[in-house]
């Protein structure tokens, strides 16, 4: 559906994007993930046409649209702050694109109302000014405004970043449902790894204008290809030399202690004799209660390791408790 081939974007002397190659399949929920300033929004704006690349091509359904002006691309966009026109009503906002295309009034009315129904906006809400709506309703208006023009693709630029935590989770779920309902190819930009992992079919992790890894959420999380991805996604422990040496001694592995060795929090097992091949003596130095799980800080071989334990009522460890820690070398990520 979308192909970015060797895209490079420069702003004066600054190279914002280099060698970007992406293939988004039809109907896919594709996420660009990365820290601020990594180039994810620039890539999105290159697809929508707000930025013209210095090099490379943007193809949609096999057609080169690199130099097609933004207003002729038929790619819907939902902006970070929704960019709803404050002087217009909800109805006028949704109808804007149709009016530009000179669609007749009856059709505009029908399509606006149909779309409003699909995103669960009532007729009364259609007549309101956008400022009178809640954050969630505003998001639905922005989506309706983008979708009413029947775009081939919809791009969303961090649409949940300005919302509070609870609403973010709620709208994330709504967004996923809506994408499934419309089946539209979606390109989503976020710096929130949890959002990316829960929503996406495919994720491209950006760093300093390059793509570090492209893969499914599971590939990105469990088989991070680069140290950056491994550090950026989820919480992680970097094992220091004494633990790595001890791991080699306890197992038949020959891990290089000079390399950077990482393990996810959930892959460290506490007082679970059946799990893991290498065992260590540890001491609890801190605990944080999260309800569903408990996060522990353990002192192992002179290093502090973080781990999480499901809160199933089986054990609740206190500070200074002595524990047995198990690690499976297969869970390690080495760079």
């Amino acid at each position, binding site marked *: 559906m979308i192909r970015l081939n060797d895209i490079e974007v420069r*702003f004066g002397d600054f190279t*914002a994007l280099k060698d970007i190659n992406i293939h988004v399949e039809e109907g896919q929920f594709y996420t660009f993930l990365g820290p601020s300033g990594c180039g994810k929004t620039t890539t999105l704006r290159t697809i929508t046409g*707000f930025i013209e690349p210095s090099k490379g091509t943007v193809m949609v359904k096999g057609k080169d649209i690199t130099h097609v002006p933004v207003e*002729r691309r038929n790619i819907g966009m939902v902006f*970070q702050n929704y*960019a709803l026109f*404050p002087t217009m009503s909800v109805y006028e906002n949704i109808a*804007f694109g149709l009016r530009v295309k000179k669609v007749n009034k009856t059709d505009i009315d029908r399509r606006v109302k149909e779309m409003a129904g699909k995103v669960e906006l009532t007729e009364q809400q259609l007549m309101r000014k956008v400022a009178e709506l809640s954050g969630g309703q505003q998001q639905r208006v922005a989506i309706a*405004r983008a979708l009413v*023009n029947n775009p081939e693709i919809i791009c969303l630029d961090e649409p949940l970043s300005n919302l509070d935590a609870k609403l973010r989770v709620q709208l994330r779920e709504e967004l996923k449902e809506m994408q499934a309902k419309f089946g539209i190819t979606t390109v989503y930009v976020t710096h929130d790894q949890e959002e990316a992992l829960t929503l996406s079919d495919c994720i491209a992790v950006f760093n300093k204008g390059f793509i570090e890894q492209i893969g499914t959420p599971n590939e990105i999380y469990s088989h991070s290809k680069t140290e950056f991805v491994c550090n950026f996604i989820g919480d992680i422990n970097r094992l220091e030399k004494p633990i790595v040496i001890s791991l080699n001694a306890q197992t038949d592995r020959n891990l290089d202690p000079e390399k950077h060795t990482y393990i996810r929090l959930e892959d460290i097992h506490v007082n679970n004799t059946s799990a893991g091949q290498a065992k260590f003596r540890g001491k609890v130095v801190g605990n944080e209660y999260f309800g569903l799980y408990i996060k522990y800080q353990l002192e192992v071989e002179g290093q502090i390791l973080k781990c999480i334990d499901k809160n199933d009522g089986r054990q609740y460890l206190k500070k200074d408790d002595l524990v047995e820690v198990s690690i499976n070398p297969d869970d390690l990520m080495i760079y």
Partner: protein
Amino acid sequence: MNLVKVPLLTRMRRMTPGQLLLFCIMAAVFIWFITACMVLPILNLLKTVFIENGKISLSSFQKLSKSPRAMKALKNSFILAPTLSLTVGFVGISLVLITEYFDVKGAAILRLGYMTTLIYGGVTLVSGYKFIYSNNGVLTNFIANIFPHFNKTWFTGYWAVLFVMTFSCTSNHMIFLRNAMRAVDFQTVEAARNMGASQWTILRRVVLPVLLPSLFAVTILTFITGLCAMSAPLLVGGKDFQTINPMIQQFAEMTTTSAKSLAATLSLILGAATMILLAIMTAIERRGHYMSVSKVKTKIVKQKINNPVVNILVHFYAYALFVIYVIPVILIVLFSFSDSAHIQQRQLDFSTFSLKNYGELLSKTTAYKPFLVSIIYSALAAVIVGLLVVLACRYIQKSKGTFSATALEYSLMIPWLLPSTMIALSLMLAFNQPRWYMFNKPLIATLQLLLIGYVIVKLPFTMRMTKAAFFSLDNALEDAAKNLGASEVYTFRRVIFPVLLPTVMAVAALNFNGLLTDYDMSVFLHHPANPTLGVKIKSLTEEMGNSSDGVALTFVYAVLMMIISAIVLYLVYGRGGKDNIKE
């Protein structure tokens, strides 16, 4: 988000033929207006000062130094400006402290009284003060009745000018300094108190430093107002206290070349002084304002004055100031209903009150014409300047950082550096003969000249406000419209302009308000058969001793002006409207 700079030629190549034609017409209009109406007249003024018989010469400065009247006017202006800065500073700071910082009883009423200068200023205010304080004035008579040896001619010369201007120039304090006071984070006051600081120490070490940048700025603005004083010295300065601007006017009205050259030289000195002061102000502004660093800023809580004696003195001072501010307004309103005989005798008799004076304004051509002329000129100028600046700002926004955008922006800000007298004089000297760039038509004594002057003088303020509105616009709105398929013109018409409209309207209303009683520019450029309100009020005020009908008419004008100004200010700054004006 980085905005990609698109070169002008590339943008022009992308335009449709219609858009290109429109762009070329607008570019031609701007280039012509800036060159013909601003740059060339100023160059002509410089030529009048520095070129004599085709050679560079400083003889106009020598002539100026030999003119005792001109030198005295210069000296007077440079005496008035610093003393005015001190007196206005003192009164202005106390107004802000009384209404915003100290717990003074009746602060809301006091604030209304102190803010009367916002709706009542310039030549109208001087005229009102003259009616009250001059020889045979209402208050002068009242005091003379109590103290028979009181000098009834006290209200003339330097002290009278200083008195009038002190109480008429506190508007900037009531707007800018008051806003700065409201920006003080009360938690800093509480923190200082918590550490044992006294009320005086908190005021001196915590509150005043926050106000300092605004205080510097308003002091410089007051200094410039003092230098450029016009109506106060003209009406109450008497023979002994004339300042630069009235002198420029007098020289400009003379027909000789040397008098015109003296006027130009004086205006150049005034312009140079203004530029230096504005440069200082800009440097202070660049140092920035103190920003609150608290995560949760707290609104200031009024401070009780602990010392009972000081508390009584502050209350007495606050109400004395209130009386000074309010008495002229009340008396003008009351006398506007009075008949000629009672106005002549400066006596109020409620039984004689009627709407006759107002009726005369509507029925006599000579009475309503200046009012109508001013309304038409002010409205036209406000619309034209608003339109020009919106188009200019749009271009500047789209071409930010390019040479053409920077040149356009700086050109439209030129009048900010120049006193309005200098602009008026430059237009007068430039267009008293046919000029090719004005299609070979002399503009002196035409209706257009004053309109051009009004537009020019309001460009910088409009530019500052409108540009701020443009640049505070969310870029995503425009991107969203484009993404939905809208062209640049459609986006501007349907999305950008409606968002800007409240600001554009507010600025237009303020411009309209500011021009309505203008005197400084009108006196140079008005059409002889169509005097503006400012010019009319000034001539009526000069006749105050002779014609009571004229005085009554002045009062009617003043009351109507106050009503119009109050409505305009309410619409701009009142309920929810204050968000329209951001700088």
